[in-house]
């Protein structure tokens, strides 16, 4: 741990919506290659944290440094260029296009900068990359299916695959398993985490499902009312009193979706 | 001083007439999220119907005072008949479609209604001066004004008060406001939204018709009437904030007065001024000066 300089450095991060404090003085370092699970009850500030790191929401105060570069104030697409990508709780894909077209666009943009975008999109080079992505995310069978006709789980897979084609060094996943059935969730996560491991991506993911957390992460950040109340390995975190009371306890009441 | 008063009265009269028409447009937009290009046709239909019957009745030797009744009747009949047919026959099937596509559909309707006017009333202009002649003129501060034109200000005030009363003092107003704020919420509250839509559309259409019917005695009612009115009302509604009655009132005043100033002082910029204001508002305050509150969607 000590030998690795942090890839992401968050300092004194604050976000207020009027009187509501969604992030209260968050400080955290993430090292390269870590798989971090972000847990917390609804409204604890998890998604808000993801939104701030990816530039969707400007923080009220504080600093977020990625490989030493300040991210606060950058537009989302500049942050993508810098090497941080994300998926969404509700998958954000092009619903009237096919899976193949979705990924082609993602690949083309990932390759292109500015005026390159005026060259033809459909090239043999891109096609072979597309096949590669389809294979890795097991989307081959759905290549020519329009997104609006896809099952929820496949959409989420596509959402994540699109986030990864730009070869980010940090990937934030916002509730990857929400909307996915209990029977499918481990298969789904095996595909995703397997593909991500190959690339050596640092992953932060927001998750409600403690089974998933226990199985896939190397470190847990527990959020409560805009603060990190626990930062420890998953086994310890899930046994932690505060975490049980403020995060898991509430979870069991609601048993998400 | 005389010029000032003339501009003021001209401006107020023009604002009043804009308000009556735009109030209907903005109510329909507020409740149904439809920017109705065919609103210009309600106006034209109101004008033609009123002018036609005022002329007919006058020819038959009926008292000219009947004209006022005809104006109101024309507005109601046009609003109810056209409003009902259009909402039930066409718009009803479009609510789930894209906002912009609905605008286009109402543009198609506008074209259709414009020509039905020509077929029904012919191309010759109509003059229905009788109600105006009846009220004669009056001297205010050294200038002579038609009383009829001044009553327009009163009618607009009545419409404004009526709308305010309906929205804020009646059960109907509460229902409307709920639907305006959030359609889904309205449905979940058990509101019969389709009925609200039909009635709103008819109500808006009546106001559009009233604008035309009331102005008919002061103008020559000729083809192409609705074409200018609809873009002017768009300007009013955009400036005030789409879907807001108070916005329509302020928008009408701004545009009516500005145009009156332009007509008297710098006629070259008469039209330019109206749309320049519209563009500037859209650029700096796209929701309009008095946009109604919106629910947070995220």
């Amino acid at each position: 741990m000590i030998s690795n300089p942090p890839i992401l450095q968050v300092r004194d991060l604050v976000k207020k919506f009027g009187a509501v404090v969604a992030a209260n003085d968050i400080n955290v370092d993430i090292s390269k290659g870590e798989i971090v699970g972000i847990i917390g009850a609804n409204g604890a500030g998890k998604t808000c944290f993801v939104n701030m790191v990816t530039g969707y929401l400007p923080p009220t105060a504080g600093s977020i440094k990625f490989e030493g570069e300040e991210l606060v104030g950058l537009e989302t697409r500049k942050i993508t260029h810098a090497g941080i990508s994300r998926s969404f709780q509700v998958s954000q894909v092009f619903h009237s296009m096919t899976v193949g077209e979705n990924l082609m666009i993602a690949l083309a943009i990932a390759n292109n900068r500015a005026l390159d975008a005026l060259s033809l999109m459909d090239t043999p080079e891109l096609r072979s990359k597309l096949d590669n992505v389809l294979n890795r995310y097991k989307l081959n069978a759905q290549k020519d299916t329009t997104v609006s006709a896809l099952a929820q789980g496949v959409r989420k897979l596509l959402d994540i695959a699109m986030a990864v084609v730009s070869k980010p060094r940090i990937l934030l996943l916002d509730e990857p398993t929400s909307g996915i059935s209990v029977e499918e969730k481990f298969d789904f996560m095996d595909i995703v985490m397997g593909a991500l491991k190959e690339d050596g991506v640092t992953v932060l993911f927001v998750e409600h499902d403690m089974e998933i957390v226990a199985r896939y992460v190397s470190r847990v950040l527990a959020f409560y009312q805009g603060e990190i109340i626990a930062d420890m390995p998953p086994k310890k975190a899930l046994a932690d009193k505060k975490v049980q009371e403020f995060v898991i306890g509430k979870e069991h009441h609601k048993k998400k979706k | 001083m005389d010029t000032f008063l003339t501009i003021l009265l001209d401006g107020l009269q023009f604002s009043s007439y804009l308000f009556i028409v735009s109030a209907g447009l903005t109510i329909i937009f507020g409740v149904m999220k439809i920017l109705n290009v065919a609103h210009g046709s309600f106006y034209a239909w109101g004008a033609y119907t009123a002018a036609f019957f005022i002329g007919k009745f006058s020819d038959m030797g009926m008292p000219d005072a009947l004209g006022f009744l005809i104006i109101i009747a024309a507005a109601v009949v046009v609003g109810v008949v056209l409003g009902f047919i259009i909402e039930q026959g066409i718009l009803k099937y479009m609510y789930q479609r894209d906002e912009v596509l609905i605008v286009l559909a109402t543009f198609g309707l506008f074209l259709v209604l414009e020509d039905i006017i020509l077929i029904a009333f012919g191309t010759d202009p109509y003059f229905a001066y009788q109600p105006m002649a009846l009220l004669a003129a009056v001297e205010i501060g050294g200038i002579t004004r038609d009383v009829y034109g001044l009553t327009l200000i009163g009618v607009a005030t009545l419409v404004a008060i009526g709308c305010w009363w309906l929205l804020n003092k009646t059960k109907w107003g509460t229902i409307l406001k709920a639907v305006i704020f959030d359609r889904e919420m309205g449905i979940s509250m058990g509101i019969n939204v389709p009925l609200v839509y039909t009635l709103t559309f008819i109500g808006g259409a009546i106001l559009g018709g009233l604008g035309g019917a009331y102005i008919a005695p002061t103008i020559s009612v000729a083809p192409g009437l609705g074409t200018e009115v609809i873009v002017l009302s768009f300007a009013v509604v955009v400036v005030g904030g789409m879907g807001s009655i108070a916005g329509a009132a302020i928008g009408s005043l701004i545009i009516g007065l500005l145009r009156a100033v332009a007509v008297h002082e710098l006629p070259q910029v008469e039209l330019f001024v109206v749309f320049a204001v519209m563009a500037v508002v859209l650029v700096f305050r796209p929701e309009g000066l008095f946009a109604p509150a919106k629910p947070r969607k995220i």
Partner: protein
Amino acid sequence: MFNDKTSKFLLVAGLLLILGGAFAPNWIVNQFMFGFSRALAILGLMVLWRTGLVSFGHAFYFGLGAYAVAILDIKLGVTDVFLRLIAGALVAGTAGFLVGFIMRNYRNIFFAMLNTAISMVLFGIVVKTEALGSTDGFAISMSTILGVSPETKYPLFVIITLVGMVAAILVNYYLKTTFGKLTTAIRDNEIRVEYLGFSVAHAIHLKYSISAILAGGAGALMAMSLGQVDPESMINWTVSGELVFITILSGPGNVIAPFIGSLVFEVLRTYAFELAPQAWQLIMGATFLTIIFFIPGGIWSVLEKIGGKKNDK
């Protein structure tokens, strides 16, 4: 790069039309000239339409193009067809590029309305300015081609057809580039495009500028074909409505569609007007409603069905 079916079809069809035009009667040539002039503007609106944007004010650029020709003619005596075309496209394109900085932040109704407002500002200015011809407009002298003044309108028809053909092939290419592919994608989901690392604003700005250039060119060609300009038939909001009408009528499926759609519009209007001069708008309006309701893909989708999807997209 240009060896796809659509480009080849355009090339062959264009050349055949030019050949055929030599033997066609005058009134047919005229219809094609008006139709193809307008089609240029529709091509641009189609690009916006695919992106989910409808401008209810592109008569602004159409009018700028037309009036650029008129002003050049009257003030400087410029009659060359190419100079006129370039001037129209350039004036409108510059205006579109500048307005685009604002327009790229607007969507839906606001985009439609802001365009209307801008076009009506121009309308208001032209109508009230004597120096710009006021409501009467200007007559425009016959166009010359590289110094030669043609006897008939046929040479102008040839040029319009060629310009349309080249423009369609270029737009077709554009639609296959990454920029061009970002049409449906932007319509579907802007957030994703931004997160993929591409500026939606820049993409829309480019599309808007392209549509302005094309509308300006269309206006210039129309002014030359008609031999006159006036605000009512070049700038008023009803002209913008007409352009949108043809766009929907044509359908967004292919760059050939605007040409077919514009021709159909031209024929429809001529016949509707002859058949029932009091009811031609009614016929147009009813057609428009029918398309919106029952044939959202426009004429192109019908042709595609008939052709059994043989044409490439």
